[in-house]
């Protein structure tokens, strides 16, 4: 647990909190889709960083599965969202 590791944890945590704030406040569902995509990427990066820091390979298949199927979430939202959900901007 050195300075670099602590800095990595803090940066990941702040990034996740900011992304969650965007998911909460919206304003449209596509903004939330983009933000949740970023959050999924953040999960992948955290899993990989944890593997590299602790020197194990247990979560490598999880990385592959998330990279393969994580795209379907935002594709489905973008495909089936209503044509007009314009909110007051």
């Amino acid at each position, binding site marked *: 647990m050195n300075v670099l590791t602590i800095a990595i944890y803090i940066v990941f945590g702040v990034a996740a909190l900011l992304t969650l704030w965007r998911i909460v406040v919206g304003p449209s569902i596509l903004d939330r889709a983009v933000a949740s995509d970023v959050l999924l990427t953040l999960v992948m990066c955290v899993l*990989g960083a944890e593997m590299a820091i602790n020197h194990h390979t247990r979560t490598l298949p999880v990385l592959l599965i998330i990279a*393969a199927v994580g795209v379907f979430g935002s594709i489905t939202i973008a495909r089936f969202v209503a044509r007009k959900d314009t909110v007051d901007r």
Partner: protein
Amino acid sequence: MTEMNAWLDVAALVLILIGALLCLIAAIGLLRFRDVPTRLHAATKPQVLGLILICLAIALSLRSWPVVAFLVPIVLVQLATAPLSAHMVGRQAYRNGTIDERSLFVDELAQSRQTPPAAGG
């Protein structure tokens, strides 16, 4: 040899830190940009470069060829699927009207926007 291993670990940590900073930049961009396409622009940075940096860090940290052989398809799959979601979300944002019209200099999709709602797509 142990000294070199220590240096490789430090290099892996630095790569992870750069990837984490990319994620932070994407989050700040998500908060500060105004509409969906600009937020999409910020969001695609960690999806490709950040993940490549993290995978390089894993390879440097674990130092075995089977792990590298596992990391290559992860990066390739991510490179193949990230543009799919970005394209779909951006297209739907244009059709939805959730973009800032005044920020467009050229609107090459203005005609295709007139498609009837039953045309699909």
